[in-house]
C-alpha cells in the first residue's frame, strides 16, 4: 500500500531522529532531571478519604519541622467563580481544575491534594506533611456509575445540575451532562431489521501508564514571575491553565519544556505546576515536585470506566439500518469525561441511516479522568465492534465483508453529522483482507478476530520559526513537545522544502517565550499542524532565498525559481545557487534569513484503523496469549514511516494491556488496591508478539504532504479485535474488560457447567 515511488527525497525516508543521540546517551533532560542551586524538594499531602468535608487544616506544627521552608493549602489559591470557570476558548472548567489541584471545602477521592510542603530534603518534607493536622467530616462515597446514579446516592457537587429539561426540578445529581444525538427513526429501523442484537458491556478504568511520573521545577522570583520546567504535552497549555487557576497574567510564567517521558493524553492537564510555583514564592527558592508512581495512579487521570449498551439492526444482506448506543462514563471527581467523544465516534466508521446515541457524564469518588489516546473511542468500539461480530455471525457473513458493505466513504454523512471528505477506511479493510495473516491456518484453542476504529484529528494552532544560519544549516524553533519522534518528521518536511540534508536541520522544542503559541501535542495533530507551520515558514524562507539569488544575479526575482533545493535562473545561463551559498552572502544581500509561520491548521482529516489478531486461550487457566497481530491504518502520508509504525504498534500494545490485564481495582473505602506497576500489570516484552503494520496511504488533500494524524486511532479497535478472537477460539463472548485469565476462566467454567455457549459479561 505504501507507494514505492514518491516525488520526495526526504519525506518517507527512515532517517535518524535529530534528538536520538541525546536519548541513547542519557543526556536528554526529562521533567525530573533539572537541578537548580538552592532547590527545595516538595511533597503533596493527599486525602486518605474518598469523600469528606475539610473542617480545618492546621499547618503550624509542620512549619516547626527543621528544614521545612513553606507549607501551602487551599488558603493559598484564589477562588475561581463559576462565571470564570469556563472562560477562554478551552473546554476546561477552571473552577474544577483549580479544585482538583488543591481541595477546597471537600476532598472527593483518595489522593486529592490538601496541602503541599517544601523542605531542604525529602525526608524533612515528608515529616512536615505528617505534622499537618487535617480535620475531616467523612461522607459516604460512590465508586461506580450505578452507585452514583442510584436515587439516594450521596451527591458530590451540590451545584451540579444535569443539562436536561427535567433536571431543574430534580435538583443536583451526579450526572454532569447528558449528550444526545439522533438521526432518522432507530426504533422503526429495528422493527424492520432481519437481525437485531443488543448487548451490555462493562469497562473498568485504566491508566495511560506513561513511565515518567509528573514532575516540575518552579523558580518564582521576587517580582512575581516564575520559570517552570516541566514535562507536558503542551507547555503553552501548562502556561494557560496554571496562569488561570492562579489568576496570573500568562506572561508572568515562562514554561520550559522538558523532554516528555510519555503522555498518551494524560499530560494534557496540570497537577503540580501551581503548587510548585506557590511553594517557590513562599520559600523564595526553586522547588521541585515529582509524583511517586502511587501518586500517578491515585491522583492523575485514569481513562474512565464505563457501562455501555449497544443495539444494532441489519437486513439479511448485511446492510445496517439502525444503531443505538447508551453510554455512562465514570468522569471521576469532576465532570468532563470523554463520553461526548464516545458519542461522536461510536458508529462513525459506518454509513447508518437511523441512529440514536445517549451519553452520560457521571461523577464519582475516584480521581478525575483525563484524556487517554483517542479519548472515549476505544470504549465505544469495544461494544460496537463485538456486536458487529455477532451480527456477521448471525447473517453468516465474513466480518470484514460486513464492515466493508457498511463502510463510510467520501460523501457519506457521518453519524456525528458532517459529511466525510476523502477517507481511507475501506482501504484499511482491504489491506487486512488481502494480508497473509487473514488466511493463515489456526490450531486448536486458537481464534482470530478483526475490528475497526475511527478517531478525529485535531488541527488547532501552531507556530514555527525557521532560522537559516550563515553555514546554510537551519534551526527549527518548535513549540510542540516531541513525544514520539515529531522532531524527525519536522526535519524531513523542512529538508524537502529547503532542499538541504535532513542532518543540516536542527529542530528545537523551545520555551513559551521563544516561539509563538502552540496547542498541545495531542489529537494526533503535531505532524499535521505544526508540520504545516514548518512547511509554511520554510516556503517563506525559500521566497527570501529566491530574492537573494535575484540580488546576487542582478535579475528580477520572477526569473528565479526554486528547484531541487536550489535557486535556478530561468535562462539556465547561471550556475544554480544552493541555500548554503545564498546564506553565506546573506549579510550582503539584505540581512538574516528567517521566517515564522503562525496558523490555525485547516484541512484536517480523520483516521481509521482495521486490525486482525490471533489468540490462543488456555482452557485450563483462561490465559489469553496474543499469537499474531496486524494493524492497518490510514496515515495519509507517512513522513517518517518508522515513527508512524511506532504509533500504530504502541496503540495496539496499550490496547492489548487494556484488553487482557489493566484495570483500577478499588477496595470498599475507595482506595486503589493495585497502585504499583507490579499490581497494575502493563504488557512487558515477553507478553507480546511482533506487531505487524500496514501503512495505508490515502493522502489528506488538506495538507501539503497529505498527512493525517496517526497517534491515536491505533488503540481504538484493539480490545474488540481480541474479544472477537477469544470468541473464535472458545465460543465465549467476553463483554467485560479486562478479559483477564480469571474472567475468561470463570466464563469457560460457567459454560462447561451448563454445556451451552453462554455469553458472559
Amino acid at each position: 500500500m505504501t507507494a514505492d515511488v514518491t516525488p520526495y527525497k526526504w519525506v518517507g525516508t527512515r532517517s535518524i531522529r535529530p534528538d536520538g543521540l541525546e536519548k541513547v546517551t542519557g543526556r536528554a533532560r526529562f521533567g525530573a532531571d533539572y537541578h537548580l542551586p538552592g532547590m527545595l524538594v516538595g511533597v503533596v499531602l493527599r486525602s486518605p478519604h474518598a469523600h469528606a468535608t475539610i473542617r480545618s487544616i492546621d499547618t503550624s506544627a509542620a512549619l516547626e519541622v527543621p528544614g521545612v521552608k513553606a507549607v501551602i493549602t487551599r488558603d493559598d489559591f484564589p477562588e475561581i467563580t463559576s462565571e470564570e470557570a469556563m472562560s477562554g476558548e478551552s473546554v476546561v472548567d477552571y473552577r474544577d481544575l483549580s479544585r482538583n489541584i488543591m481541595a477546597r471545602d471537600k476532598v472527593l477521592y483518595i489522593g486529592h491534594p490538601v496541602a503541599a510542603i517544601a523542605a531542604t530534603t525529602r525526608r524533612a518534607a515528608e515529616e512536615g506533611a505528617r505534622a499537618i493536622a487535617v480535620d475531616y467530616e467523612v461522607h459516604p462515597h460512590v465508586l461506580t456509575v450505578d452507585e452514583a446514579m442510584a436515587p439516594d446516592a450521596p451527591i458530590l457537587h451540590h451545584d451540579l445540575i444535569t443539562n436536561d429539561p427535567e433536571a431543574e426540578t430534580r435538583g443536583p445529581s451526579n450526572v454532569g451532562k447528558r449528550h444526545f444525538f439522533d438521526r432518522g427513526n432507530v426504533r422503526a429501523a429495528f422493527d424492520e431489521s432481519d437481525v437485531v442484537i443488543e448487548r451490555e458491556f462493562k469497562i473498568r478504568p485504566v491508566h495511560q501508564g506513561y513511565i515518567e511520573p509528573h514532575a516540575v521545577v518552579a523558580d518564582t522570583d521576587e517580582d512575581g514571575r516564575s520559570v517552570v520546567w516541566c514535562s507536558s504535552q503542551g507547555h503553552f497549555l501548562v502556561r494557560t491553565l496554571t496562569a488561570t487557576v492562579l489568576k496570573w497574567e500568562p506572561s508572568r510564567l515562562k514554561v520550559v519544556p522538558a523532554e516528555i517521558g510519555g503522555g498518551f493524553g494524560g499530560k494534557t492537564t496540570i497537577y503540580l505546576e501551581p503548587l510548585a510555583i506557590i511553594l517557590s514564592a513562599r520559600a523564595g527558592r526553586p522547588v521541585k515536585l515529582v509524583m511517586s508512581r502511587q501518586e500517578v495512579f491515585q491522583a492523575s487521570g485514569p481513562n474512565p470506566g464505563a457501562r455501555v449498551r449497544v443495539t444494532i439492526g441489519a437486513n439479511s444482506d448485511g446492510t445496517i439500518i439502525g444503531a443505538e448506543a447508551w453510554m455512562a462514563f465514570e468522569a471521576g471527581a469532576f465532570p468532563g469525561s470523554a463520553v461526548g467523544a464516545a458519542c461522536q465516534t461510536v458508529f462513525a466508521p459506518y454509513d447508518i441511516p437511523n441512529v440514536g446515541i445517549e451519553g452520560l457524564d457521571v461523577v464519582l469518588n475516584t480521581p478525575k479522568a483525563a484524556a487517554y489516546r483517542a479519548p472515549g473511542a476505544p470504549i465505544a468500539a469495544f461494544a460496537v465492534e463485538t456486536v458487529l461480530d455477532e451480527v456477521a455471525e448471525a447473517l453468516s457473513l465474513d466480518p470484514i465483508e460486513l464492515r466493508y458493505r457498511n463502510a463510510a466513504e467520501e460523501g457519506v454523512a457521518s453519524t456525528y453529522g458532517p459529511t466525510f471528505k476523502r477517507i481511507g477506511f475501506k482501504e484499511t479493510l482491504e489491506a487486512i483482507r488481502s494480508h497473509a495473516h487473514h488466511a493463515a491456518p489456526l490450531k486448536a484453542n486458537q481464534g482470530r478476530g478483526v475490528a475497526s476504529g475511527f478517531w478525529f484529528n485535531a488541527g488547532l494552532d501552531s507556530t514555527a520559526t525557521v532560522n537559516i544560519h550563515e553555514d546554510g544549516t537551519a534551526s527549527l524553533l518548535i513549540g510542540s513537545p516531541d513525544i514520539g519522534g515529531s522532531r524527525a518528521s519536522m526535519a524531513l518536511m523542512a529538508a524537502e522544502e529547503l532542499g538541504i540534508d535532513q542532518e543540516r536541520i536542527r529542530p528545537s522544542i523551545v520555551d513559551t517565550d521563544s516561539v509563538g503559541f502552540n496547542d498541545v501535542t495531542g489529537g494526533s495533530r503535531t505532524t499535521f499542524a505544526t508540520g504545516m507551520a514548518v512547511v509554511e515558514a520554510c516556503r517563506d524562507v525559500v521566497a527570501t532565498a529566491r530574492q537573494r539569488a535575484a540580488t546576487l544575479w542582478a535579475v528580477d526575482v520572477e526569473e528565479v525559481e526554486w528547484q531541487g533545493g536550489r535557486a535556478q535562473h530561468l535562462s539556465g545561463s547561471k550556475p544554480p545557487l544552493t541555500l548554503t551559498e545564498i546564506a553565506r552572502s546573506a549579510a550582503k544581500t539584505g540581512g538574516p534569513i528567517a521566517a515564522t509561520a503562525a496558523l490555525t491548521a485547516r484541512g484536517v482529516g480523520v483516521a481509521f484503523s482495521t486490525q486482525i489478531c490471533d489468540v490462543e486461550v488456555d482452557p485450563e487457566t483462561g490465559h489469553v496469549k496474543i499469537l499474531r497481530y496486524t494493524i492497518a491504518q490510514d496515515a495519509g502520508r507517512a513522513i517518517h514511516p518508522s515513527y508512524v509504525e511506532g504509533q500504530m504498534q504502541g496503540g495496539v500494545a496499550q490496547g492489548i494491556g487494556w484488553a487482557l490485564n489493566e484495570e483500577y481495582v478499588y477496595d470498599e473505602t475507595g482506595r486503589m488496591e493495585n497502585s504499583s506497576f507490579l499490581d497494575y500489570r502493563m504488557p512487558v516484552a515477553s507478553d507480546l508478539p511482533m506487531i505487524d503494520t500496514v501503512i495505508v496511504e490515502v493522502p489528506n488533500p488538506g495538507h501539503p504532504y497529505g498527512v493525517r494524524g496517526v497517534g491515536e486511532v491505533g488503540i481504538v479497535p484493539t480490545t474488540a479485535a481480541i474479544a472477537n478472537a477469544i470468541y473464535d477460539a472458545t465460543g465465549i463472548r467476553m463483554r467485560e474488560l479486562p478479559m483477564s485469565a480469571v474472567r475468561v476462566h470463570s466464563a469457560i467454567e460457567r459454560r462447561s457447567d451448563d454445556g451451552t455457549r453462554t455469553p458472559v459479561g
Partner: protein
Amino acid sequence: MRSHVTCTINGDEVEFLVDDRQTLLDALRDELQLTGTKEGCATGDCGACSVLIDGRLNCSCLVFAREVEGADVLTVEGLADADHLHPIQHAFLEGAALQCGICTPGLLVAAKALLDRNLKPTEEEVRYAIAGNLCRCTGYDKVVRSILDAAAEMRDSAVVS
C-alpha cells in the same frame, strides 16, 4: 547515618557521602548528577533505573547506595566510548527503537547485560531479557528488532577483530 562510598562508576573512581537509606538511584541522580538513569516507579517494577553492578543487571532503586562500596557500576552514561556509540545505541537509533525515550537508558543497559553473555540470542531470549523494562510507547517490536540487530552487528565485528 551517613556513609562514605568509594566505587567505580562508568570507569571513573568516585567518592560520595550518602544517607544510609538512600538508594543507588537517588545517589546517582541527586548526588552525582547522573540523571540518565530514570525513576519510573522506585519499586523495581519498571526497569527505567537499570544499571550494571559488577556486570550484573540491577534496578538501582532497589539497591542502597552504600551497597556499591568497591563495586564497578555502569550506567547509560558509560555505554558509549568517548567518541563512538555502543552498537546497541547505534541499533536503537537506526531501528527507531525509542519514542519518548524515558525507558531507553534502562533498556540499553538491560540489552547490554544480555549481549555481554549471549551474542546470539533468540527473539524469545531478548523478550525475556528485557521483560523487567516497561516501555509504554513502542509495543517493544522495534526494541526487540534493534537488540537482535545489535547482536548481529557485534557478532560480525567480533569475527573481524
